[in-house]
């Protein structure tokens, strides 16, 4: 006997095709680093216990953003033209004792004592904001290290870099055939020898890491990322930037503030070494392939671990999902820790 709906055939209703937006850093770079970790955190919403990396990167970015605002007098016109660190570097021991007293004040419910520099003040503001998202430093050393790097950067680069900054947190978004790609570049900086047109501009991007811990695959992905940013910039402004600079902040670390920029601190890409049209097209196509891979992983709910050649042991060492992962340690996995 035919059923009550015999003859009906369900076909999808026509409707607009809405493209999904993908963030260059969180989605594409995150998935390229490790699909398994990306799927657990960004798709299945596991809350990581190890937030160190996120903490480190976010504090650096947000405090530096405030430093630029400080120099340009964005919130307070009185700070215009001044360095937030005042050109001094507060020693680690003083930072430690300040953080101890600030923590004690917080515990007691009283306001923290006046900070030794504006950088420290911005650091505390940012840190508090991050706590509201559950992101915090694991140890006191990490906090001191972040402030140290910020002070070094401010002292070393601030006087020449801050006056050149054209825009911070510059948003870029561009349509691709299957998706929308979006990203936020840390800085747009005037080319020292150029005018004020969009072509006389550099893109700067901060990374909290150092050269030595990066795998070749990380390095390649960062290059792609910068080439993609250059393309998104071109799509928005009609012209490519002069160059793209990746600044590896951890290269500044050491007992004293460097007096000149360490050779490995920057990675510069210009037309002669990567901003040619073929290079850019290759990077765009590479990221588009990654987007297709993310969509497929979603569809199949399959999130494989990174290949051991592609991910650094340092990344795996702070991954919450490492205990049953075949990848770390050159494919041998890590022994379970007790408890």
């Amino acid at each position: 006997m035919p059923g009550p709906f015999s003859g009906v055939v369900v076909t999808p209703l026509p409707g607009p095709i809405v493209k999904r937006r993908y963030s260059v850093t969180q989605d594409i770079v995150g998935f390229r680093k490790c699909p398994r970790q990306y799927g657990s955190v960004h798709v299945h919403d596991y809350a990581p216990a190890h937030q160190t990396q996120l903490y480190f990167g976010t504090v650096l970015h947000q405090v530096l953003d405030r430093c630029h605002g400080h120099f340009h007098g964005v919130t307070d016109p009185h700070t215009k033209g001044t360095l937030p660190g005042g050109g001094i570097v507060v020693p680690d021991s003083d930072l430690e004792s300040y953080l101890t007293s600030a923590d004690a004040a917080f515990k007691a419910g009283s306001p923290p004592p006046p900070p030794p520099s504006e950088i420290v003040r911005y650091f505390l503001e940012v840190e508090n904001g991050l706590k509201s998202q559950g992101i915090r430093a694991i140890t006191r050393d990490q906090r001191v290290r972040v402030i140290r790097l910020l002070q070094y950067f401010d002292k070393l680069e601030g006087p020449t870099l801050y006056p050149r900054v054209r825009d911070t947190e510059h948003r870029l978004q561009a349509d691709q055939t299957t998706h929308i790609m979006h990203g936020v570049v840390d800085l747009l900086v005037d080319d020292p020898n150029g005018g004020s047109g969009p072509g006389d501009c550099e893109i700067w991007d901060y990374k909290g890491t150092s050269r030595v811990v990066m795998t070749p695959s990380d390095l390649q992905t960062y290059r792609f990322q910068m080439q993609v940013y250059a393309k998104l910039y071109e799509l928005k402004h009609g012209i490519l930037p002069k160059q793209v600079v990746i600044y590896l902040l951890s290269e500044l670390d050491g007992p004293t503030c460097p007096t000149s920029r360490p050779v490995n601190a920057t990675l510069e890409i210009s037309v002669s070494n990567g901003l040619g049209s073929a290079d850019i097209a290759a990077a765009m196509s590479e990221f588009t392939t990654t987007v297709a891979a993310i969509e497929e992983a979603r569809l199949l709910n399959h999130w494989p671990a990174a290949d051991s050649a592609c991910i650094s042991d340092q990344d795996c060492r702070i991954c919450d999902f490492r205990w049953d992962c075949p990848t770390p340690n050159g494919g041998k996995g890590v022994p379970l820790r007790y408890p």
Partner: protein
Amino acid sequence: MIPLAGFHQILDGASGRGYPLNGSQRTAVDHPSGPLWLIAGPGSGKSEVLVTRALRLLCVDGVDPRSVLMTTFTVKAARNLADRLASYMAALRTAEPSLTAIDVSDLRIGTIHSLCNDILQEYRYPGYQNVRLLDQVEQHIFVYLYSQITKHPDVAFWRFFDYVVPDWRDKNYVPSQWKRGKAGAELFNHIVEDVVDIAQMKSAGGYWSVLAHLYEQYVQALHSRYRCDFAHLQQRFLEFLQQPTGRQLLDGVVGKTPCLNYTLVDEYQDTNPLQERIYLALAGRSPHNLTVVGDDDQALYRFRGGTVAGMVNFDKACNAGFGVSPTPVQLVDNYRSHSNIVGFFNAYIDSFVEMRRPGVRAPGKLPVIGKSAITGTYPAVSWLTRARAAHLPDAVALLLRDHLMADGVISDYSQCVLLVRSAKDSPGNAGPYLTAFNARGIPVYNPRSKTFMEAEEIQCLLAVLVHTIDWNHTFTTIRLPNGNTPDWVADVNAWITALDQALAAIPTVRHQVDDYVSKSNVALQQECAAKPDKFLDVTLHEILFRILSLEPFRTWRQDPARNLRLGKLTRLFDSYHSFNLDSLRADSTGTSIDPAFMGRFFQTFVSYLVDAGIDDDEDEDVIVPQGYLPVMTIHQSKGLEFPFVIVAQLGDKGRVGAAQRLEHELAPFRNDLYPRSAQPPADLAIEDDIRLLYVAYSRAEYALILVATPAQLKNHVAVPSRDYAAFRRSTQII
């Protein structure tokens, strides 16, 4: 910029949405200025209109994207709007390269909470500096730890507010501290979001005055501990808008930022009175470009503080706030459902005397008109019935398997949905359906089949954690101040039994858990001995991830519903971690874990899980895996659509809950912008029930199937006018 006609032409084309807007949609998009009151029936393309209107402002009127703020109810919906905006902007840009300079990513878009937080941070608002924003779970923990209301011992006070206390069994005794804490948080949130005049509440005397004082203590505690909850976040934002810094946002700063000129609000039927004020304040500048979109008939979130009154009375709000009337536009063309389904839900919502009272529905509400491409003479609205309720689940299973699937009507079970009031796997809820589907070989996706704490994987994970850190099971010796054993002890024991049973069923993996626990116990004892009275450099949250790497949890993580719950447990531990309470510590003798740490973990966190109950996420992204039949609550189905919608558990009634009572009880203290009709709580509960089923019915594209016995449908709001006889005569039985 481009002319309006050209703008529409591009978006109508294949690279845009692919079809033209209808007359009223166009009217709404083209509305020149001033408040716009967009009442949009189900399936009428309201988000489409909102997005197109925003793009018109940017591309035709040349409005700076930073002058536009767009908000909606959930993170998921906000993401969807942003995706759509970007997609259409891309189409416009391709057709008109002159639009390249417009950057839609500068437009402020998000939930009201995220926008308030971002803007207050961006403007460094002094009232919101250095504070930690508490999510819902953290607010509960905060109230528990620092608010006097959790310690308030007067049983008469609690009886007065018993409707906000979840599952309070013996009313001769005060509710547990957690129940008091959760009830307290609900009361405090309502006080803020309903814009209650605290002075007036105090002067009312009695328990109201006690509540007002307890609220003030809570506010003080938030302040002194640099915390802020979601309700106060919105309150601070409203304050900010009235300050000089807030004026910078609204009026702009010459040479730097443009003024905020356009506010567009989606899902306006679920806003609360405080949000209503925020939106009016955002659009305070003439000509008050505030666009609100929603459907009063689909208001579902009273239990989260939303009130349909905002949508119904938008004209009164505009007159009170701006001194002008909004332009009303109704979107009535439905492109989703077969016209018989539309006819059915139109007649349904219109038929109740409760819905015809003034102030319940938007004035002049028009019926929805069926414009879907789906046609045909099959029974688009049908009734699946049996004489006995026990026979219904199998009848549904057979319909799905032997007709819809076998006849090739559907190609995948995910083209259907079973909508229920409660998706729990228990006899009074969806349980019989789940059993029937299982017996007939229909795979089911039902992330809410268990209450969170009943789920096997959650109980087992917690049991392993307890074994790991509390090897002597000291939790069994914890006593309440009155000497009694806390209720949660029995629950923890039950988790341990559940773990034993689960491992007994898969003996091949038992050794993994046993091995982990015994080695961890030894390691922890050694650590304690090495570091008496010190932290042990490991958190509960970290231990949780190690346990998750063992079987059976590894395998369970492959199951979509279990994986969702396990992820949620890590988020709960993250919230506990945010109070800095989850780092393990040795006792002073170095022989075991610090009893104070252990006591806090069990008394605060475990008792919270057990006693306060973990609410389902309202914002979850329902991604139905292919091949599975989704079973979901009607609330979960909001905003979704399915070819075949089967609605079961008809005949059940929604009960009067805290939300309806509070809406009524707080009325005398509320600072209303305009007079609101006050319905008794029982009537509000009926209205909510009618709206709930309206949402369920309007999800269907091809067919709506009502599942109930005749007895269940008699006098029930599931049928229009509660007129069973008419329903029976006019509906095809399958």
